[in-house]
Each structure stands twice: as C-alpha cells, then as structure tokens.
C-alpha cells in the first residue's frame, strides 16, 4: 500500500501546484520525403507527419485520463527543413505551409523544424532558405523556425549572426499588425540540441530515429511551494529539497514518455528536465528565485540563486530518468513568466542581467520585446553575445527576441495564451554595426579540442 502522505502530495502537486507534463513532442524524420520538386516534397511531408502523429493527441488524452496528470501541449518536431529543400531552397515555403497544414489537421499547437544548421558556414542553399523565414512565419500559424549559428566545436558563424539580425527585423515587420508575433516563433541557437521537445526551437536531428517521443516536464509551482515550506533552510538544504522535488517531477515525465512511445510506435527519446513557467500565477521561475530571498528577480544575487536552482533540478532529474536530454534546466522567458514580467515592468530586470542569468541556466534571452527601431546590427550583436556564452561554456544558448514594430520602452506587447505579454525593454543605444559588419567567423575556443 502507498504511503498516504505520498499519494496526497502527488495530488496536491497536480491540483494546487500546477504540476503537468508541459509537452509530448513527437520527433519525425522527414528525410524519406525528399523528392525532386518542392510540391512533391511538401505533399510527402504532409502525409508522413499526419500518418506518424495521427494518434498523438488521442494518446495524450488517454494517458492524461489514466494517470490523472494534465498533458498541456502535443507537438511535432521534424528534420531541419533546409535539408529537405537543398535542391529548391527558394520554394521551401511550400514545405513550410504543408507542415503548418499538417499541424492543423493533427490539432497540435506548434510544429517545429523550419530550421537550418549553419554553425560553421552557410551554404548558398541555406542562405536562400533562411531568407524565406520571415515570409513563412508571416503566412503560417503553427510553424516554428530556428537557426543554429554557432557551436563549441566550430565557433560562431558571424555571417549567419549578421543575417539573423536582419531576419528578426523583417519577421517583426511582416507580422507588425500582431506586435511582431512571428519573432516569437523564431529562435537562434548556439549549440542547438537535436532532441529538444520545447518550442519554438524544437527540431528532429539527423542522428535521431524515424520517430521519437520527447517529453518536457514542468513544475516551477511545485518547487516554489516546497521552498515556501522551508523558509529558514540554508542553501545546502534548499538545494537538496529542490533536487528531491525535481526527482519526483521527472519520474512522472519518464513514465508518460515511456508509455506514450509504446502506444505511438515510436522510440522513447528523452525527458527534458526543464522548469518551464507559464504566465499563470504560481507557475513562475522568477517567484522561486524571489522565494530564495531576492526581493525582485533581476536584483543582485539572482544569478547565484538561479545557478543553484538549475544545478539542483538537473541532479534530481538525471537520477530519475534513464534518458535525459533537450535543454534541461530552468527557463527564463520574460513574457511567459508572471514574475519576470513584473520585474521587467519595475525596471529591475534588464537585458544585461538576463544575459548574465543565461550563463548559468538553460537556454537564453527568451521572449524579450525590444524597441521596434533597434537596428538589425544591434539585434545581431545581442545574438553574438549570447552565442559566445554558449560557445565558451559548452552549453546551449538561444535568442528569441521581438523588435516590436512601432513600440518603444514603456509600451508592451501581448501575444496571449502561453506566449504571454512582455514590456518593451531598453537596449543600449551604442553602435555595433562595424563589429557585426566584419563578418567571417569567431574560431572555436581552445577547450573545444578534446580529441
């Protein structure tokens, strides 16, 4: 028989503390869909995604009913589309629209993988493909795009960094009537991972199987509640408590991932141990940091608190799952976390502090709105800084930034739902155009040569 306390603890986590499975993401290899023309490739991709993920939504609903744990999002990630379209990159949008249609048919909210991997250099077909991103994001609803511009092994492709500054600006312009929402579906990575279940940066790497189930768990609310029960604990005890909580949360994720993979005839990929916030009150990573004793997130001590949190989550999670991957850590998306939104509105949380925070936690500058008149070269320079943190620290970093058209500091953008709302944050008005205009690449760091 189960311990009564344990059973009630699980139920409280689910019912009062927002414990949920944030996403079940099915990674699907579209390499078999490459055909002679864009039209044929698009049709094959649509058919394959619809066939493989046919029962994704249904299965998630069944699992949620059986185990009594909410499964919030059902998603699909696919092979980077630039690879499918190498022979006809100018027509890649056709494949993008077919994938968006597949997402609608399946009833899923996002499909990721309109992606290019250009961390070392950019082939002509990839450059042409990247230029299609603003158009495809403006004319689709559920498609997500990402570009990997650097890695610890290869350095940073500064030509790609420069181009992506322009692509963010163009994407924002093309979706100006919705505050530049296209940029919320576009991520630039350094050290992108091939099994990430979280959007907008999910894609299915070429080293992956025909179909894999990757599960992203969530539980900032659970960690927040448990910390409230030990207000006077020292940091070591706090870390231990977070670790034990992360273990339990991850075990739930592992169970759902294994069972989903079995029922959907796919490989069990990974469990992503991330603490992913939502705009709901009580589901915030910022509030965990504030519970630790920082009066407002972004204040001094935030980076240290986040470093401890991120590490404790990983330690508990690694023990709990046989296969851990994805981004695994604490997410700090400004618009998707009520505590971050409030701290940014107060002016305490600024871009520079967020950048420091990204050096100790998973991912990077995420869902940040900046003034619409920010030059493309400044956006590129922000990307370059973030990529450098990833490259040197052997970790994934990302930038998902919205140069909100027509908006300035003091305004805010509102995307609704999970994407939330964000105050427009100030950027330095210094000029980085000469630095970005140099082009070329930043060489791989010395510690990347491990062979």
């Amino acid at each position, binding site marked *: *028989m*189960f*311990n*009564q306390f*344990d*059973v*009630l*603890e*699980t*139920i409280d986590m689910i019912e009062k503390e927002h414990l949920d499975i944030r996403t079940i993401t099915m990674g699907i290899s579209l390499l078999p869909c490459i055909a002679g023309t864009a039209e044929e490739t698009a049709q094959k991709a649509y058919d394959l995604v619809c066939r493989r993920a046919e029962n994704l939504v249904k299965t998630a609903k*069944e699992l*949620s*009913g*059986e*185990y*009594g*744990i909410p499964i919030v999002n059902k998603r699909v990630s696919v092979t980077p589309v630039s690879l499918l379209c190498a022979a006809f990159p100018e027509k890649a949008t056709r494949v993008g629209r077919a994938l968006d249609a597949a997402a609608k048919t399946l009833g899923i909210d996002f499909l990721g993988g309109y992606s290019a991997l250009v961390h070392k250099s950019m082939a002509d077909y990839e450059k042409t493909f990247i230029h299609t991103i603003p158009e495809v994001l403006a004319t689709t609803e559920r498609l997500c795009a990402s570009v990997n511009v650097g890695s610890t092994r290869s350095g940073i492709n500064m030509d790609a960094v420069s181009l992506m500054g322009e692509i963010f600006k163009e994407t924002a312009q093309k979706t100006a009537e919705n505050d530049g929402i296209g940029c919320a579906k576009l991520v630039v990575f350094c050290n992108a991972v091939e099994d990430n279940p979280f959007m907008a940066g999910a894609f299915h790497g070429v080293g992956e199987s025909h179909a894999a189930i990757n599960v992203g768990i969530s539980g900032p609310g659970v960690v927040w509640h448990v910390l409230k029960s030990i207000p006077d604990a020292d940091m070591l005890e706090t870390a231990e408590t977070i670790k034990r909580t992360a273990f*339990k*949360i991850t*075990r*739930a994720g*592992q*169970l759902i991932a294994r069972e989903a993979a079995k029922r959907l005839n796919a490989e069990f990929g990974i469990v992503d141990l991330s603490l992913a916030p939502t705009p709901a009150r009580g589901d915030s990573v910022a509030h965990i940091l504030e519970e630790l004793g920082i009066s407002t997130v972004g204040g001094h001590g935030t980076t240290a608190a986040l470093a401890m949190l991120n590490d404790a989550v990983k330690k508990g999670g690694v023990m709990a799952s046989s296969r851990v991957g994805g981004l695994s850590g604490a997410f700090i998306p400004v618009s998707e976390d009520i505590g971050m939104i409030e701290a940014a509105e107060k002016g305490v949380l600024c871009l520079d502090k967020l950048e420091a925070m990204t050096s100790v936690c998973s991912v990077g500058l995420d869902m940040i709105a900046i003034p619409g008149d920010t030059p493309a070269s400044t956006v590129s320079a922000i990307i370059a800084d973030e990529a450098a943190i990833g490259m040197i620290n052997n970790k994934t970093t990302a930038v998902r930034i919205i140069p909100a058209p027509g908006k300035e500091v003091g305004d805010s953008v509102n995307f609704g739902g999970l994407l939330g709302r964000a105050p427009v944050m100030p950027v330095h008005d210094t000029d980085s155009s000469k630095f970005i205009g140099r082009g070329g690449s930043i060489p791989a760091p010395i510690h990347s040569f491990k062979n």
Partner: protein
Amino acid sequence: MRAVVTVTGKDRKGIIAEVSAFLANKGVNVEDISQTILGEYFAMIMLVDVSEATADIATLAREGEEMGKKIGMSIRLQHEDIFNAMHRI
C-alpha cells in the same frame, strides 16, 4: 491492473459505504484501504483492481469525479504507476 482511488473532503457519515457501492457497481475490487480524519477533513486512499471493471481507467476516473460531485467529495482514480514512479525508486 491496479489503480489508486483518493477520496477527500469534509467528513460525514456514510462516505465509505457510498464509494464502495459505486466501485462494486463498476466491477472494481478493493484490495486495500487506508483512511484518516484530520480535524473535519476526511482522506481515504484505496488500492483497487480494475482488471474486471466495466470501463477503462480514464472512463472510471471521469465517472468517479462525477460521483464525487454528487456526494460532495473529491474522488480521483489514477493508474497506480504514477505513484510508483514518483515515490518509489
């Protein structure tokens, strides 16, 4: 296949009888019960076998939830593995 039934709410007479009758009616066999009262708060956990039940776990869970609303209690039925996963190594 086993599931865990959790019944919580304000204590009153006849809760166990009503819940047991409901489960028997659905072909669910009760294997173990643990129950406590904390102040006015009633909490019962039952380990049940659902292999001969009239419906699958998700359906039983839905029916249990509805039944709970009728008697003013919160009733949940979940596959036992969620608790195995989270609380046993």
